[in-house]
């Protein structure tokens, strides 16, 4: 029962973060929100007893992809290409 509630809460947070990342104007906030979506998905996988998938999602989705996006964003800004912020 507790697990179901936790899954529902995590799912709602993940969906809200996903919608926010498509709608918000700032690219930086969008990247962070998509990272939050991945993190929530990874916790959901862990609750669904699949630690292998949870680990992959946490390392790749929440960790590496977010940081590479941020890194690319920094480079775009320093080369004067990004104006949407």
């Amino acid at each position, binding site marked *: 029962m507790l697990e179901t509630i936790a899954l529902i809460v995590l799912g709602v947070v993940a969906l809200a973060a996903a919608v926010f990342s498509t709608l918000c104007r700032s690219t930086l906030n969008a990247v962070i929100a998509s990272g939050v979506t991945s993190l929530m998905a990874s916790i959901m996988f862990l609750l669904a007893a699949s*630690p*292998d998938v*949870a*680990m*992959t999602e946490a*390392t*790749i989705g929440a*960790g*590496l992809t977010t*940081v*590479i996006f941020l*890194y*690319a964003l*920094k*480079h775009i800004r*320093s*080369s*004067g290409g990004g104006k949407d912020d």
Partner: protein
Amino acid sequence: MIKNILTVVAIIGLGWILYPLLVDFETSTVLNPLAQEYVKGSAADLNLPNAVTAVVVTYRGLDTLGEVTVLFLATAGIGYFLKRRSNKKAKQTAGSEILQTGAKLLTPLFMVFGIYIFSHGHLSPGGGFQGGVVIASGILMIVLAEVNFHFSHLILQFSESLSGIAYVGMGLAGLVLLGLNNFLDPRYFLPGNYLALFSAGAIPVIYSLIGIKVGSELASVLAAIQQDGGEA
């Protein structure tokens, strides 16, 4: 306006396609026959506690080889499109004091943890891919913190290609030693004691090679991004 209508139509269409799956969905309480064979076989034949690793490395080993190949192609593509510019000195601002100190402290721990994950892939959750990504995260951290960090392309190339060749070689060894049906069969090594680090045949070796390959591939992606960016 028409764009918004089309978006809504696309969302409704997707929901209409996926709705039957949701209606018919029920959580299965028993494993299907194929999964039962995998779970039984991983303990009985391969002496392997982690059934997921048994599927990834052995039963669906060819898929894993394909995934590693796809990752290699993606890396090669990134390296091609982000070619090294003539002006090699990229303008990069140094990380803050906190980031620099944290990176110095944490990067070795990331490395050790990544190696732990892929060398214990047959015992605990995780494996080559996850371990490789953790190693690449450690490298990324030091790239972000240090201005004058240079990748050794020689080491990256050697670790990537040697681990790739060794992975295929381990697969072919099964073909040679065990017979024509046994590509990527790990049972030519001794099975060892159940739950020991050196057990389950060649699986720890194969998974470690995958980990080194994934780690060095992602590190070379980072190297390509680092050398491309920053100079405007």
